[in-house]
């Protein structure tokens, strides 16, 4: 009979059920009324923004755009659990977290509008820009955490990665490094069940994505990612542990991509309507609204006012975006290196001359 030499459990945390009923202990933040309201406002804000971005793309005013519909509670949970000095390493969907951390709506639009200035983040100095090459950002997060650790700064790095992204070697390498040096880093696996057209069952045979942490010898926990309070519960603990120098955590957040993969995608080709309908029943806004309304922390009137304010902000951002125009052609040369090498200076001159003779739209 073999002996058992190691043993692992994967816990799952949920505080509110889809109807907004409390089903488990609530985290400390749940008794902070203003924090709750601020988070709910942020959730509504990003949902409204997201809808507008999709509309802009549909009307030819934006390039391909990746909607975050359904991920909003998770995004705001992450954003609100971090401090400004912490560093965030997103994929390409985490607008909710980014808005919380100072990225401007107009920057998000610029990025998807084909303009590098969208990643220049005027109000967010150190967060990484969107990482399109799947999984690569997890290593940057571990590297940042290593920098924090070496400099003894009490900062935390947090990377998100998709369910699809968990198949990339970089993710395992990042978790493994985090484990070896006990780094202050948190990996949030955004399990929205789909990687474009590939469902989770074709992505991995792992029963949970949290258990991927076991490969690196670090804690892994699964959470209802549509439940803001549960997200905060597990994140607050992970952040506190990381900040105390107790090492990394992997958090698998169960959510659902309610939108197409991007506006260039048509999800009807590969998934059924019923599945999406079931997912809508679990989406994050309704349950938190119920929870708040039942406790007298939120009203329809407030929501109407807030929605209007957000719409104004969004319209303003859209105006800024649309008014921004083409970036200076020089920029593509001037930011290649800190100083312009001679050969590139010649190419820069050539490009500017070519622009003169045949200007583009």
């Amino acid at each position, binding site marked *: 009979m073999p002996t058992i030499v190691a043993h692992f459990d994967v816990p799952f945390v949920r505080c509110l059920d889809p109807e907004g009923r409390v089903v488990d202990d609530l985290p400390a933040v749940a008794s902070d009324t203003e924090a709750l309201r601020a988070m709910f406002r942020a959730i509504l804000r990003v949902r409204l923004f997201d809808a507008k971005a999709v509309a802009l793309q549909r009307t030819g005013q934006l390039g391909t755009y990746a909607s975050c519909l359904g991920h909003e509670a998770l995004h705001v949970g992450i954003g609100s659990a971090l401090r400004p000095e912490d560093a965030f390493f997103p994929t390409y969907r985490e607008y909710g977290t980014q808005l919380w951390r100072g990225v401007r709506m107009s920057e998000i639009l610029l990025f998807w509008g084909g303009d590098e200035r969208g990643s220049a983040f005027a109000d967010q100095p150190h967060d990484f820009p969107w990482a399109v090459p799947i999984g690569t950002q997890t290593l940057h997060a571990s590297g940042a955490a290593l920098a924090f650790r070496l400099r003894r700064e009490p900062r935390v790095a947090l990377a998100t990665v998709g369910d699809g992204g968990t198949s990339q070697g970089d993710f395992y390498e990042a978790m493994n490094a985090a484990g070896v040096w006990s780094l202050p880093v948190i990996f949030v696996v955004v399990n929205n069940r789909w990687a474009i057209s590939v469902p989770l069952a074709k992505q991995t045979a792992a029963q949970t994505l949290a258990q991927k942490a076991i490969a690196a010898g670090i804690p892994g926990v699964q959470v209802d990612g549509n439940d803001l309070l549960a997200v905060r519960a597990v994140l607050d603990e992970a952040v506190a542990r990381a900040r105390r120098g107790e090492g990394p955590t992997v958090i698998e957040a169960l959510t659902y991509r309610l939108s197409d993969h991007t506006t260039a995608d048509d999800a009807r080709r590969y998934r059924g309507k019923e599945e999406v309908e079931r997912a809508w029943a679990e989406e994050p806004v309704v349950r938190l609204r119920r929870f708040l309304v039942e406790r007298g922390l939120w009203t329809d009137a407030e929501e109407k006012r807030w929605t209007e304010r957000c719409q104004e902000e969004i319209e303003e951002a859209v105006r800024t975006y649309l008014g921004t125009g083409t970036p200076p052609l020089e920029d593509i040369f001037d930011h290649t290196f800190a100083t312009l090498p001679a050969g590139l200076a010649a190419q820069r001159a050539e490009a500017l001359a*070519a622009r003169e003779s045949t200007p583009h739209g």
Partner: protein
Amino acid sequence: MAKITLVEAVNLALAHALEHDPSVVLLGEDIGPNGGVFRATAGLQERFGEQRVLDTPLAESMIAGLAIGMAAMGLKPVAEIQFSGFVYPTIDQIINHAGRLRTRTRGRLTVPMVLRTPSGAGIHAPEHHSESNEALFAHMPGVRVVMPSSPQRAYGLLLAAIRDPDPVVFFEPTRLYRLHKQEVEDSGEPLPLDTCFVLREGRDLTLVSWGAMIHETLEAARVLADTGVEAEVIDLATLSPIDYETILDSVARTGRLVVVHEAPRTAGLGGEILAEVAERAGYDLAAPPVRVTGYDVVTPLFKLEHDFMPSVARIVAGARRVLEG
């Protein structure tokens, strides 16, 4: 015979290969029910089944490594990498194993695989979706690199790539995927992987290009023709190993050479071709040869991508430079 687009020609060639060779297997991200993000594999899983058209987990090194193992065991895997900006994780497997296994084992094991990937800018795609990185693969011994520039050539070259007993990296210019239609006969006839294609004959100068830039290059040749200059246009098609005979033969007649590519200039394939021509036919050159290329910068996001890609005007200006000497 219907006229079809380049991406449809790719689909047709894949279907032909699946139909006629049971060892052909497609693998890649989203190539199954979704038919590929560019629809290159549309309908193929439905038609040939999940055993022949495999949706993979999201990992490019894995796709390349699996294909190598499959190929060495006798299959002919045709792997898709979704966009060229995501081909880099395959490089280790391609250079260290795919291109080497034959010589490492002195022919005992071989890797008849194809790695298909889109290439190039110009379709308003997101970040990392518009790169041209063929030169990286052209530097790898034991690897063929191919890039078609028309539906017919896409069909014939892809069939040839699949049948080739060695690894082929097959770049598909996204900008051409739906730009033109052409009659393509589903004949199963491959096109040779050891010759360029002369798309237009001319006595005054030689324009060499490949992939999407063939479009601008041909257009430049028409512009030049309006001024009485007859440019020969050569589609390199197989980017490695290069058919220098056709190029040298043309340059021997024209004495003037312009190479056009979208990839960055430094260490791009334009350098390779100018060098080889200078070396082997330097005395044939009536004027210094010219490269018209992308700049040595990251392919810009789409607001500026058209400034990055060589324009017809820049090609014509390059031609003028070489004509005026």
